[in-house]
């Protein structure tokens, strides 16, 4: 199993794609953080107080952007599997390890580590932005809160990347999996949450927010289990369907 993980590691880090995904993740976090830092200041001066940075706890809202690149984490996992179907390397992968679920497990381990890296980058980026751009006056900056948000993001991204691997195995056509993944995170999930408030807390996005400390949602521990449950369920379905398929 360790050998499989190392093989997946080489596969990942031999491609520029991974660094590109990390860059996209950083850009997304920057785009979501900047409005708070640039517009909130103006709003506060004009008494609109959308986000009054002088209030204790106001910065907590900014720190939540550290965990806002879930779609990138998901895609990291999706690309790990669908990259192989796209380039035909799946033949070689399954020749080397015919027990296909073990391949999926090895990919999940590496994707989770990539998710953690993404969280480290996101945390660093947001901290730097706050350091450079936070307008005066503002409440004292609690850097510890940023670290806490970063740890939560690491957990969320790792779980989303694992979820992405399972989803990629289930939808092995790369373009389809990527488009569906993006649509789900940015659109479908929000619509579903609006239509079905009862199940809303159990949707992956809500579970991710719960791990990030949002109130009125699941307890963080339960939220972790929900995300693990999705990953395992999708992997199990893939294992019984698409993963059993003939490789031609």
């Amino acid at each position: 199993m360790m050998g499989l993980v190392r093989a997946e590691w080489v596969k990942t880090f031999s491609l520029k794609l991974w660094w590109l995904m990390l860059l996209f993740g950083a850009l997304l976090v920057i785009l979501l953080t900047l409005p708070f830092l640039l517009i909130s200041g103006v709003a506060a001066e004009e008494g609109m107080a959308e986000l009054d940075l002088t209030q204790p706890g106001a910065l907590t809202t900014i720190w939540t952007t550290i965990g806002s690149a879930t779609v990138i984490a998901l895609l990291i996992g999706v690309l790990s599997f669908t990259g192989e179907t796209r380039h035909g390397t799946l033949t070689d992968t399954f020749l080397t390890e015919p027990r296909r679920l073990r391949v999926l497990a090895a990919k999940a381990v590496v994707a989770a580590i990539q998710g953690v890296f993404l969280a480290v980058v996101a945390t660093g980026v947001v901290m730097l932005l706050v350091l450079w751009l936070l307008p005066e006056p503002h409440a004292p900056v609690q850097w510890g809160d940023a670290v806490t948000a970063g740890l939560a993001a690491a957990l969320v991204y790792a779980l989303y990347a694992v979820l992405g691997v399972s989803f990629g195995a289930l939808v092995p056509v790369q373009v389809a999996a990527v488009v569906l993944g993006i649509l789900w995170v940015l659109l479908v999930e929000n619509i579903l949450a609006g239509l079905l408030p009862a199940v809303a807390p159990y949707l992956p996005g809500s579970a991710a927010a719960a791990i990030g400390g949002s109130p009125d949602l699941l307890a963080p521990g339960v939220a972790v289990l929900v995300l693990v449950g999705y990953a395992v369920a999708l992997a199990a379905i893939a294992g019984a369907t698409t993963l059993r398929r003939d490789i031609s």
Partner: protein
Amino acid sequence: MTSVPIEVNGLTKQFGHQDPAVAELSFRVAPGRITGFLGPNGAGKTTTLRCLVGLMRPTSGEALIAGRRYADLPRPTTVVGAVLDVEGFNPARTAREHLLIRAYAGGIDRAQVDPMLDFVGLSDAKDRKAGQLSLGMSQRLALAVALLADPPALILDEPANGLDPAGIAWLRTFLRGLADEGRTVLVSSHQLAEMRQTVDDVVIIDRGRLVRAGPLGDVVGTASVVHVTGPDLTALVGAVAAAGGSTQGSATDLAVTGLTPEQVGHLAWQHHLEIHGLRAQAAELEDVFLTLTSDRRADP
């Protein structure tokens, strides 16, 4: 070198509701020899090979390597190396990275990677990306991946495809060397002229079914025509039929097919027949192949 036979027993593979791609196919591949797996395009060669290495699930029957299904082999790449498609490389990874991935995933010593690149003549191209390799180089890289764990059996699907004459000559010498070391080598091809010079045994299939299997000499030999002349060969007609051959011509001038010249001569001697002439007209593998497969095509 441990000897590892390859066996296909009653293999059937059906996709959807179409006619089976492979039907009740059985053959055995012996160690230490190069076996050509021949058939026209679409005969079911690739499907059979993919069933052998666990990439496809047989509808019924079994395909065994060293007596086991591929998926049941512990560390299967150390038992059998397979080259199935040359395009199976990520164009952005280097030749060496592809071998490194196989080494890690297959539990193979990483120290084998560089010597293997030398062995297939790719040491100068090891840091080149797979997308920049020529077809011949990709073939060599695929061979390097398959041979990395020093497996006693080798399965190659159309390895001569797209190779230039020099590449084909190289491949022939390469495969002969591997078979001489006692390895089991199964090579599929539709390029018959090429195979004639390379293989020891042949397995010919058409439309998913076995047409002929055996040593190349026997298969070509029985397909050749043996012309026999003598004063009265009436007794030979029945003897040939009893031995599984067929005859055409008159009682003084017979053309025998389906038997080797040795077999025909022996039959004549057994029946105390006076023979004035016995001449074998050798068939080429192409002739055999076309005869055998067109027979089947004429069948309803």
